[in-house]
């Protein structure tokens, strides 16, 4: 079987002229001594003609969207609509898709992975690891990781630094994974169902950790079913359904309709799932 090259599969249509902002421009000392200027895209994600199927079952069908930088984005949609698949693609875990993606102005690769903090919806640490091993592992591979902050979080969550992952409950594992991800000072956070398996009491603590610990001006993409709990936190909403983007807009635009996000969610998703 011959593989098609990635170039062949990409849309021939290039991205529109991308505007970039320049950070640290006013450095206050002669330009020749200035540190290399960090160029940051206005968009955390630019996605064009993205299609992904599992054995012919199309999950994402030729979708295109942009997500502006520095927003808290709610990725909403019913089960099986492709939220996790989209997250995995953006995190660089799925490769056999067609379409073109830029993460923070860069194609998906080592460059983008260094700036993306990804929290999947499953346990990803080896069972033989202890809490401190998980923290050290992140410290080894991510330059933006704050070990002191992670140890503080562990204490706050009541996690023993010497406890092995295999002896932890599901909730403890989720807390451990959340604490290492939120101890990074990343430009983009991809959080896949961070509140999925936790009790309502822990939910508010976790939400508090997320909302108070992401880096300033970072983009947080948060997928969830718990629209009601989170709708006041979102700046931007991306709703998926039927393999398509149903809603991609700022929260103000949604609120101007006089309806809550949950109502719009039920309305839009209900329409999308209606059988003709």
């Amino acid at each position, binding site marked *: 079987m011959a593989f098609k090259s990635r170039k062949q599969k990409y849309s021939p249509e290039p991205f529109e002229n991308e505007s970039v902002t320049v950070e640290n421009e006013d450095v206050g000392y002669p330009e020749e001594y200035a540190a290399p200027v960090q160029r940051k895209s206005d968009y955390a994600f630019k996605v064009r003609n993205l299609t992904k199927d599992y054995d012919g079952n199309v999950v994402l069908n030729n979708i295109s969207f942009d997500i502006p930088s520095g927003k808290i984005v709610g990725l909403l949609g019913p089960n099986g609509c492709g939220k996790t698949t989209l997250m995995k693609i953006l995190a660089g875990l799925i490769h056999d898709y067609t379409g073109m993606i830029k993460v923070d102005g860069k194609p998906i690769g080592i460059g983008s992975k260094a700036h993306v903090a990804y929290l999947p919806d499953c346990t990803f640490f080896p069972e*033989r690891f202890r809490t401190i091993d998980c923290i050290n592992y992140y410290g080894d591979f991510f330059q933006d990781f704050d070990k002191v902050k992670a140890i503080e979080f562990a204490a706050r969550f009541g996690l023993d630094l010497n406890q092995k992952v295999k002896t932890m409950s599901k909730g403890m594992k989720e807390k451990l994974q959340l604490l290492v991800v939120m101890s990074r000072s990343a430009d983009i956070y991809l959080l896949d169902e961070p509140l999925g398996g936790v009790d309502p009491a822990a939910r508010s603590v976790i939400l508090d950790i997320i909302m108070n610990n992401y880096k300033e001006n970072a983009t947080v993409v948060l997928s969830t079913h718990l629209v009601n709990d989170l709708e006041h936190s979102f700046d931007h909403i991306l709703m998926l359904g039927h393999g398509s983007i149903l809603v991609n807009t700022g929260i103000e635009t949604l609120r101007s309709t006089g309806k809550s996000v949950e109502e719009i969610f039920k309305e839009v998703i209900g329409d999308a799932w209606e059988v003709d």
Partner: protein
Amino acid sequence: MLGKLTKNTFKANMSSVSNVYLAMGIIGIIMLALLVIDWTKWGDTGIGLGLVIKIISSAALCITAGLGIIMTIAGIVSEYQRNMFGAEGHLTMSLPVRSSTLLLSKWIAGSFWVVLSYLVLCLCAFGSFIYIIRHSVNIVQGNDMYYSVYELVIEMIEQLSYSAGIATPSMAVLLSLASIYAFDGAVRLIVFVLLIFFAITLSNCRPFHKTGKFGKILYFFLGFFAVSTFAGMITKFIKIYIIISETAYTFTLSQAEVAAAWDLGFGAYSITNLYCTAIAAVFVFLITTVLIDRRVNVS
């Protein structure tokens, strides 16, 4: 990054084989303890109760060492699948590291454990041979046992050389030949590990993922066949030999020189197949890297 990744893989592999090495250590201690017993008191005159017990313990050691190889390979396979494409892949594949670096780290750690388990098996087999011979020689000839075992080995080599119709090589040449054979074996084991990784990676690419465990085995043998065919075809056309004398190594393409070398008590070894296998391994490595980069999904 490579060092840190290798260290982690090394530890993960170690946890899967540590029990086998522990079992081998226990058997080894029992075998050493058996050396202290004076078997003549039990009526053993060289072939008796002591010999039977030592043969059983030696067999147990060798079987455990053989099991060690199987456990090592099984551990490497499961660690690679779990850590690259299973749940742990969510972490591994999101690291800001090149896929070639990831693969190389797995390859280095996996090769270390496979080569080690192979060496341990060879050591156990040779050690058991000496251990059993020593028992009889010790009882029959008393304290001259080490000298007698050495003499026995030399005599075996002389017999083999005579039946092959060549002059008996010197001990220095024999050691050099043994080193080259060991190096050849190690390279082939390292390529074997890479082929395992290639097969697992391919079986995680669509549409090959549908073939499951059977597919992994099939892709391994397909890869093995491709590498062997490539090396075999090149060897047919070009044969490069290394001639080993007591003082130097020389390379030659001449079969006549090789025959002459054996007649003079030197050693000779064809290295074409070895370097062709190594070249094929580079291609397998690159293909596996491309598959990881472009075709594989973390499930």
